[in-house]
Structures are given as structure tokens and as C-alpha cells.
């Protein structure tokens, strides 16, 4: 066999292998319903927010039933993260990072509270109650009024106090890769 033939055979074998892997079946198609069940992320433009609504008044009740044990009365003094206050401290020696002083997006708050809270039983409250408790935390931080009805339209429109407090590293500001057209 000449080296040329051997090389050609080698290439053919490599191509065959690649074809086999590409043609192999892995997994099964995901159904629309099951994707909806797991597709819980909420983006800053509101994409992913569910129907439903809530106010701070109802949220206070939700908070006292589910959150106060760890986060303390009115979101302070508990064993878990402090949720309120701290505005104006970020450049000091003792910055206090809370929803009011640090979080840039109200949508991220909804996303996080729904996916991870209450800590012992995440994702178990109704979407109405998640809107309500988010409204309560924002109200404690004087970001929304106590009678504001939060829903999928209003939540993304809220401008958080520290919205412009972040700057992404230049390397990851605009993503480029060689797959792009």
C-alpha cells in the first residue's frame, strides 16, 4: 500500500467515525410543556415573567409567613442576607449590599426569589405570591409604593437605584467567536 492510499484510508476512517457520532441519536426531543415547566429564568427585559400580580400589602403577609425567620423583620437582622437599606454605602469602608443598595434589576429579584425561595421549599409559592413578596421587598426599600401592583409589564420597567453601578469586563462585553456568521 502506498503512503497515499494509507492516508486516504485514514481520512476515510476519520470521516466515517465523525459521521457515526453525528448520526447517533442522543436523548429525545423536549416537549413544549416540559420546557415550560423548567424554563424559569427571567431576563431584564421581562422575558420569562409569568402571568399574575401582587402588591406589597399581600407581600408582607407572604414575607412574614415564609421569609422573616431567616431574613428578619422588614428584611434586616436575620441570619440570612440583609434585604433592605445600605443605600449610599457602596463606596464606604463598610458597604452594605442589599436589594435596595446593590441589585441592578428587579427582574433578577423575581427570578431569584422564585427559583430559590423559600429556602426549605423553593418554587412552591404561587406566582401571585412571588410578585407580592417582591413588591414588599421593593417597597421596604422605597422603590415602589405600597399599593403598586407588580406584574409582568410593570416589573421590568422599574429602575433600580444601582442600575448603573456595574461595568462588565471588556473581554465579555461583546462576545465574539469563530462560529459567528
Amino acid at each position, binding site marked *: 500500500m502506498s503512503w497515499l492510499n494509507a492516508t486516504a484510508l485514514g481520512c476515510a476512517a476519520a470521516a466515517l467515525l465523525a459521521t457515526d*457520532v453525528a448520526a447517533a441519536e442522543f436523548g429525545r426531543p423536549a416537549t413544549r410543556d416540559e420546557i415550560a415547566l423548567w424554563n424559569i429564568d427571567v*431576563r431584564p427585559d421581562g422575558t420569562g415573567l409569568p402571568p399574575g400580580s401582587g402588591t406589597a400589602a399581600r407581600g408582607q403577609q407572604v414575607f412574614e409567613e415564609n421569609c422573616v425567620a431567616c431574613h428578619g423583620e422588614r428584611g434586616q437582622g436575620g441570619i440570612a442576607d440583609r434585604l433592605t437599606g445600605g443605600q449610599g454605602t457602596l463606596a464606604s469602608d463598610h458597604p452594605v449590599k442589599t436589594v435596595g443598595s446593590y441589585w*441592578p434589576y428587579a427582574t433578577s429579584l423575581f*427570578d431569584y426569589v422564585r427559583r430559590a425561595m423559600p429556602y426549605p421549599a423553593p418554587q412552591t409559592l404561587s406566582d401571585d405570591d412571588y410578585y407580592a413578596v417582591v413588591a414588599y421587598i421593593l417597597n421596604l426599600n422605597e422603590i415602589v409604593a405600597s399599593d403598586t401592583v407588580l406584574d409582568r409589564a410593570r416589573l421590568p420597567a422599574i429602575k433600580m437605584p444601582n442600575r448603573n453601578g456595574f461595568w462588565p*469586563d471588556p*473581554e465579555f462585553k461583546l462576545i465574539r467567536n469563530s462560529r459567528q456568521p
Partner: protein
Amino acid sequence: MNGTEQPVSAASRAGSLSRRRMLAGAAGLAGAAVSERAHADSLADVPARGPGASLSGMSERSSFVHISRIPESTPGKRNVDPSAAINAKAPLDKLVGTITPADFHYERSHSGVPDIDPAQHRVLVHGMVDKEIVLTMDDIRSMPTTSRVAFLECTGNGWENWKSAPPDVTVQNTHGLVSTNEWTGVPLSFLINLVGVSRKSTWMLAEGGDGSAVARSIPLTDEIIAEGMLAYGQNGEPLRPAHGFPLRLFLPGFEGNLNIKWLRRLKFGDQPFMTRWETARYTQLQADGRARQFQLKQDVNSVITTPSGMMQIRKGYHRISGLAWSGHGRITRVEVSTDGARTWRDTQISLPALPKAQTRFEIDWDWDGTPTKIVSRSTDDKGNMQPDRDTFIAMTGTNALFHYNAQQTWAIAADGAVRNVLA
């Protein structure tokens, strides 16, 4: 000699060691890890040989070896009740070489350690893809694989020393949130081709199966596409639950919390998703009150592990040893100063020095008994050099909490006590 020794926890060890035993312990490389150095003055005193214990399904560590991780809640709150711990630090002062045993690999978990049955585990891949699919672990284990030795580091590593240097800490406390394992899994590029990710997709959300459903946006750079993997193996065995069993994302060189454990969802999109962890949590507050976001690479770093904090040394010969690593690439040079960063000497680097893996360095030193400070600094193949503390703090301030990679200084007093200092 050993007959009177009771095993003690790593916690009480530092406080309760007698001076004599500390002197003896510091004499060997792993001295502090082994309960007692042999003091037989004559070979006649060495215990006689005889049949040993029965063989077993799983070999255990020697009963003379006492090593453990340190569970911690927040900086300075150490040896907490495990239920209150948010991380566990690797015993860098008691490990040798560069590979971390899986059970000593550092851990950061946000909602405990789920106990997942792999037969019931599913991974949803969706978003900007041609084929939205559900994968089982059998599917994933039948795909092409790759293995790679690489470090993993929590962005909180070094957080003890942002504002002050607690004098009573070990290198396990200051730098124990980094480890190196061999990771095995499916190349991310294979999955990207399998589902036909849109060429316009630039970010991927990775989400865990833990109680807090930790989720991070991953930028689809060429580096991440080429080096990322869906890992199910760790040092030759299935992942430990603490490290994501049955499946985790592994991105060599990138901050620990991007390497989502208990991976169960990948969603492809064209912008970052702005989860809590990439906005409110793992962002670095600078002196001006603004925060760096998506500071994703672990910068070049190093630390001397022997001698290090809370050890006691004697005048005379020492083999200084430590670890260096960089999320940018391969460690090419580690220098050590034994005179408080006035003069520097090149150390010997143990080969192979793998890219994005911890690298062992060593250098001889004869201590004349006068108080001094020892410090290391590393350089990687991209030309990044580990900054001294003053330069680092001038750039960053003291509030960032994460991504501390300033040079670590150990002060040595006239009596040989080694203590943590800022510089």
C-alpha cells in the same frame, strides 16, 4: 510514643500542639498531617513486622493521618456547624504534589448537597438551538469524552486578607478554596454541534439541580467552546455529590461558581441572563462604589504552603514549597523572597506544569534565625505576574470580596512562629 496520642481534629490541633510536637511536625514536608514523627533512637525499637488488617473493598487512610477540610460560613467564621457552612476549605498545608484527593477538594454549595439518583437525572438543552432535547446520564456517558487536569477555584479564595490579616490562620484558611483534579466528560463543543446551537447565540445559561437552582450565564467564547466540558468524572471516579454528581459543567480557568454543579439545564441565548449570582453576588465592588461584573477568569496566583501560617520552624535548612496557578494558562515562573520582597530567587517548578492546573514549586532556604518575611509571586505564559498587595489594593480597593490574588506573605518571628501578615 504514639500510644498516648489521641487523634485530634484539625481545628483543635493548631491550638493544642505542644511546642515539642510542633517542632517535630514541621520538620517533615507533610509533618503536620502525620500524627507523630518516629522517635525510635535505635532500629531495635521499631515495632516488629506481622500480618496486617484484612483487605477491604475500599482502602482507608492510615489511622496516623489526620487531614480534613474546614467548613466555614463567612470570612472569619470557621469550624462552624456543618449545617451552617457555605464552603469547606482544602487542607493545602497537609497535601503534597498537585492533585487534590476528591474528598479533600474544596467545596462551595449554595443550598446543601443534593442526593441525586442518576437514573432519574435529566438535562434539558434548549433555546437558540435546532433541536431542543432531553438527555439522560446514559446518553451523556455514551458520548465522546475528554479528560483534563485543571484547577478549580472559588472566587472567594483569599477573602480572609482583604482588609486585615488575621494572625491565627493557616494556609488552609487563607487559600483553601482552590484544588486540582482530573476531570472527565463530554466536550461542550460536541453538545453545541449535536443540538445545532444557532451561530447567533453568544451566551448560555447553565442551571443546577440544587435547591437554589444556581444559574450562571456563560459567554460562548472560542476558549470556552474549545475547553468546556460536561463532566461526570473526577480523579477517575464518578463525581462526588459535593462536586455535582451526576453531572457538572467544567470550564478550566473560570471562576468556580460558573462550573454549575448537578447540571440539569442549558439554555442558549444572545445576551447574559443577569441572574442573582452574576449581579448581586459574584460582582466585585471597587473603591469608587461601582462593581466589576463578569470578571470571570481566575487570575495568576501562588502561595507558599510550607512553611505557612501557624507552623513553627527551626533555624537551619528548609525546603520552601508551594502552589501556583493561573486561569489564563501555564505557570512559567515562580519566584520566592525570603527577605520581605526585597530580593527574589527563581524556584524549581515540578513538571509537567499544565495549563490552568496547580503547579508545585520548591526552593532551598537556610534560615539564620532572624525575623523575616517569606513571599511568593508567580508568572504565567501570557505574561501575567501576580501583583504585590499594595499594587493590587491600589487597583481594586478593599471591598471586592472576590478575586483576591495578591502575593501572600508569611512573617517568621525570632522563635520560628510563622504567621499571616498583609505584606
